[in-house]
């Protein structure tokens, strides 16, 4: 089974899905990400799916689960680069990806994550000190 690599950039974990995900790989990514969030104290997760040709209900669920798990672990997830054909298909399939934040591209996604982390109360207090 292939494994999707996870990169760390400051307080953000970066994932770029470049392969056609088999279910076991998707599950492993979910678990690897949760572990890395806890191990690194990352506050953001950015998942680039611009190379992903289809998102079926299994992969869609993986994205929702990653978003929910990261939230429980005090990190924010953004999914970027979804292709228009994938977005249309997802909607017809019946998946809404509720709870998953999306952005157009990596740059916009990183901005969104930076904003989410900067407005945290502890950060505000840290600056006031």
């Amino acid at each position, binding site marked *: 089974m292939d494994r999707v690599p996870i990169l760390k950039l400051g307080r953000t974990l970066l994932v770029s899905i470049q392969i*056609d995900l*088999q279910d076991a790989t998707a599950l492993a990514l979910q678990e690897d990400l949760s572990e890395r969030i806890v191990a690194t104290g990352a506050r953001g997760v950015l998942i680039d799916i611009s190379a992903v*040709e289809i998102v079926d*209900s299994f992969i869609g669920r993986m994205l929702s689960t990653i978003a929910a798990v990261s939230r429980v672990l005090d990190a924010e997830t953004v999914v970027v680069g979804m292709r228009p054909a994938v977005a*249309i*298909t997802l909607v017809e399939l019946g998946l809404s990806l509720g709870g998953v934040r999306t952005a157009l591209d990596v740059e916009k996604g990183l901005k969104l994550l930076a904003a989410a982390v900067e407005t945290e109360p502890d950060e505000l207090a840290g600056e006031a000190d």
Partner: protein
Amino acid sequence: MNPVEVSASETVDIRIDQDVVRVRQKMRALAVTAALTLVDQTKVVTAASELARNTLIYGGGGQAVLELVQRSPTKGVRISFTDQGPGIADIALALTDGYTTGGGLGLGLSGARRLVDEFELESAPGAGTTVVITKWGR
């Protein structure tokens, strides 16, 4: 209406996780050959992915047959999934959005049906399951 002609056909065994990926890839290649639009390619590949996973998980494995079809002058793709698994007792229920007996999202059958032009499901308890979907070019 003109009759449907089959001009190419290929069989894929579905035994392991990775076979679901193979079905997707072969379905994509065929959809490109049939000159489906990018959106239609994406839809039929996604539908095939859902059904291949069902064949594996609920059917205990089986086969997919991919076909290039033509009903002059329109080209299209067809894929049939067959398994000898437990079958489906209540087909209408299985086709309901959100219904799952396995902890999935319950969108595989219902969603796949929405994504294609033709959808046939044949199943009975103990007699296995066959699903055939077709997507036509525009």
